[in-house]
């Protein structure tokens, strides 16, 4: 009886997390180790808010494999002299950042933490390319892995099927790399800060037929950090909080051989649909997508419902997804130009949306951006987290 009454009497306050600060390291081939890179992005936040940060989440997938280090979260809090602050490492391969953000939002929304520092970090460049390729392929099913695919090779298969199924011209797909390198050249933290012509993209070496070098994210080191707090306290940190209006995760079979289609990503579709529903909004003003390869940006933009199936490539050639277009995608340069330090990528995507919604994205600023989505994806769509952010409480 009481329970019924309480439910009726309690006000319908929907808890909502807010991102109140972001810190960056330059992505690229860096000489520093993972602790130093992590400190580079997190220290600007820690210096200001050390006393109130009561939880640290480290988004990282391969510290063991790439740097021979375990317990990275505890080593990192100690390195920052936050010895007693509880922490955990969240690993969801390429989608670690989305999962870390999901965890941080859950902690503050449940009241289990009041101020969560999320540090995304990966150090990859210490290993040769074949070794990096092998480490990343370890997320595949054992029998599939034994056949020797790389993750980019799956994107090569996707590209062939997409072009065939939807009569998409090859150059239209490569235009994603041209756009993202233009954007990356305006991002001081991007790995590659060089504008490329379509000819340069199309003449770069083939990595997996028909995907070419400049269409695939480079091997990068780097770190990005965010501070996540409950909406009620957000204004005590900053006068420009960015609210997490909706966040959702979904998964799909890890086995590529189970997939009915390689030109749709069901985990992305479901996560996006639910995040938008939770946010109570339609298509946002901009999005950061997981363009490990050019074709992925297009397929994801369709799976998310931003464009009809098979039509995403037209949005690229018509300039819809450029900065200044109707719906800019990957204003940061995307994984394609910004780089893809695995554990940092998903955090960097959300941090780009944060900058855009605060009108702090300088030369790559999208005019009047009020809402944005960050899509963090693990493996080849094995898992996806969509985060819809917005200004105005």
């Amino acid at each position, binding site marked *: 009886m009481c329970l019924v009454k309480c439910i009726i009497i309690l006000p319908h306050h929907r808890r909502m997390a807010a991102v109140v600060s972001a810190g960056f390291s330059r992505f690229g081939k860096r000489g520093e180790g993972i602790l130093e890179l992590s400190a580079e992005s997190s220290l600007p936040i820690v210096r200001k808010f050390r006393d109130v940060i009561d939880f640290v989440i480290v988004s990282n997938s391969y510290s063991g494999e790439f740097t021979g280090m375990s317990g990275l979260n505890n080593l990192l809090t100690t390195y920052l002299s936050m010895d007693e602050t509880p922490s955990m490492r969240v690993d969801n391969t390429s989608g670690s950042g989305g999962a870390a953000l999901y965890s941080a939002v859950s902690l503050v929304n449940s009241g289990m933490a009041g101020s969560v520092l999320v540090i995304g970090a990966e150090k990859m460049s210490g290993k040769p390319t074949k070794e990096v390729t092998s480490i990343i392929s370890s997320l595949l099913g054992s029998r599939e892995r034994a056949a*020797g695919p*790389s993750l980019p*090779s799956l994107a090569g*298969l996707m590209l*062939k099927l997409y072009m065939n199924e939807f009569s998409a011209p090859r150059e239209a797909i490569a235009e994603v790399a041209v756009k993202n390198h233009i954007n990356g050249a305006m991002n001081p933290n991007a790995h590659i800060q060089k504008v490329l012509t379509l000819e340069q993209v199309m003449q770069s070496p083939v990595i*997996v*037929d028909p995907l070419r070098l400049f269409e695939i994210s480079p091997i990068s080191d780097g770190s990005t950090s965010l501070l996540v707090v409950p909406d009620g306290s957000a204004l005590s940190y900053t006068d420009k909080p960015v609210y997490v209006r909706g966040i959702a995760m979904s998964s799909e079979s890890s086995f590529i*051989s189970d*997939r009915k289609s390689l030109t749709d990503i069901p985990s992305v579709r479901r996560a996006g649909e639910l995040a938008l529903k939770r946010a109570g909004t339609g298509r946002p003003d901009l999005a950061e997508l997981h363009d490990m390869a050019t074709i992925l940006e297009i397929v994801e933009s369709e799976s998310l419902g931003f464009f009809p199936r098979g039509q995403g490539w037209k949005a690229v050639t018509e300039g819809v997804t450029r900065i200044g277009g109707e719906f800019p995608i990957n204003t940061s340069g995307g994984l394609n130009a910004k780089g893809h330090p695995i554990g940092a990528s998903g955090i960097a995507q959300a941090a780009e949306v944060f900058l855009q919604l605060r009108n702090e994205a300088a030369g790559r600023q999208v005019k009047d951006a009020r809402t944005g989505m960050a899509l963090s994806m693990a493996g080849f769509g094995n898992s996806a987290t969509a985060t819809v952010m917005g200004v105005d409480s």
Partner: protein
Amino acid sequence: MKLYRCSGCGETAFELRAVCRKCLGEEFSEVESGEPETVVSSLLTVTPAGFDDAYTIAVGRIGSAGVLFSVPARSGGKSS
């Protein structure tokens, strides 16, 4: 090519699970299922450590089951 067949419902799969995704059965047998029909394939020239330097990777089908397999490059690659 070998597939795993669920003893409960007959569903075949390339990768083994503890539980059948169709009927939730938990018993499987290995069955020889013939060669796959290729759906799409692609030549890979940056390969993981322990593999040849170039080969073709392919997604195919055997009946209702998807499979993923490789075909050696004609010229042959070197192992590293």
